[in-house]
């Protein structure tokens, strides 16, 4: 199962490195979102700095959505889905592999966006340990849920509109949790942030289990 996961993750990441879609389109989009927030809010009154945690995670979610949709768009073309089923790889492995590749892309995005908010919004970054823990756990939560709902929407004509509708309400607790944890870290009160890290860990665990059990039936049909 883990070997299969590794194969799939490597394949997806290789595809991303070679096609450069993530680099040429998703990353600029993420930075664009940061700039748009500056247009929407008043940058001179420190509003951006105050709202950094929320804006940061909204930017991650929106640009992450693009990455997730892409993760399944590459499978939909040329009957790759059937090829995946014929390959004899364990469905759980496919799920974990897809999750891993989405998570890696999200981590890259998050690092770039972190640099972005530090430079553009003038946010001073403190509480590294909590920030890193939040990023790791939130990334796991977003990528597991995103992969599972990604396959639910995959191959449908309405997938581009369906995925955000399914995924964003489900990810609301992750958005709340990661934002509060970032706020706690940046305001120098990290002890308030750790319960949120715990909540997001539970979320990620639920979706790993759901994905491992749910991916099999979902791969069988269509």
């Amino acid at each position, binding site marked *: 199962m883990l070997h299969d996961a590794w194969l799939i993750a490597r394949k997806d990441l290789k595809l991303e490195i070679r096609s450069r879609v993530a680099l040429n389109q998703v990353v600029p989009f993420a930075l664009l979102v940061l700039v748009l927030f500056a247009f929407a809010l008043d940058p001179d009154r420190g509003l951006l700095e105050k709202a950094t945690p929320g804006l940061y995670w909204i930017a991650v979610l929106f640009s992450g959505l693009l990455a997730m949709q892409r993760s399944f768009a590459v499978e939909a073309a040329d009957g790759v889905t059937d090829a995946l089923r014929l390959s004899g790889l364990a469905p759980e492995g496919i799920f974990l592999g897809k999750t891993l590749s989405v998570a890696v892309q999200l981590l890259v995005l998050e690092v770039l966006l972190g640099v972005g908010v530090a430079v553009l919004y003038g946010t001073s970054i403190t509480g590294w340990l909590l920030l890193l823990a939040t990023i790791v756990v939130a990334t796991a939560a977003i990528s597991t849920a995103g992969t599972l709902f990604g396959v639910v929407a995959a191959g449908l004509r309405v997938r581009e509109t*369906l995925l955000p509708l399914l995924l964003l309400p489900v990810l609301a607790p992750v958005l709340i949790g990661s934002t509060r944890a970032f706020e706690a870290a940046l305001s120098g009160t990290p002890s308030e942030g750790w319960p949120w890290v715990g909540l997001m860990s*539970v979320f990620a665990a639920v979706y790993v289990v759901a994905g491992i059990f749910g991916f099999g039936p979902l791969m069988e049909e*269509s």
Partner: protein
Amino acid sequence: MTTETAGPLGASDSGPTSTGSRTTLILGIVTLFALGVLVLFGLILSPAEENQSDAVRIMYVHVPSATLSYVGCFLTAIGSAVFLWRKSRWWDLVAYASAEVAALFTAFTLVTGMLWGRPTWGVFWVWDARLTSEAMLMLLLLGYLAVRGIAADYEVRAKRAAIVGLLLVPNVFIVRQSVQWWRTLHQTPTLSLSGAEIQGLMLFSLFTGFIAITLSFIWMVIHRFRVAWLEEQVDAEGLDTAIADRRAEGVVS
């Protein structure tokens, strides 16, 4: 459509052949009667509350429908689980029917809550934990119903919807937990309004509300289920009839 066709539904799944039956008729009459009693006690016999005056009457329908919106969500998750486990179309449609009715009750809860909030709090909406959870439940249910509405084969749709339906319950739990930590402002326990325990006729009105609204919920789920079942059957039979007609044409020429 007077005989029950096994057809593509499978012999073990024998289902309804019309939208109502004698049982649902009786249930409907009992429900109407209960709603009448609720109107009598809720609007006429029970007194106005000291602080909220007449707005308190909204509670007699608001609280039960909020409860049932969660019950419907659980029923959807159960139906989805049994469908995934036993491949039973019957349970799949139970999940569908209860999700749709739950969405209706959630919308009703939100609207009545806002109507209550305006005179009581002065605003339609506050970012209170319970309000936010209910709104998120609405969005989660709309997501599920969106999956039900996709144009795809029955198998594809049912399986994907079942996964989404099954995840409704953990999602609702996590959402509630996170929203509660996020906002623990205007928490008022359900059965005590403005500090004073409700009792006497008001408690009885709330009790009547629970009975009447629960009966309406059951009646609606049963009817929605039967309609959904008949729709599936028409879809399946429509294709069979079309193929048979086409074959018949071939034989004649």
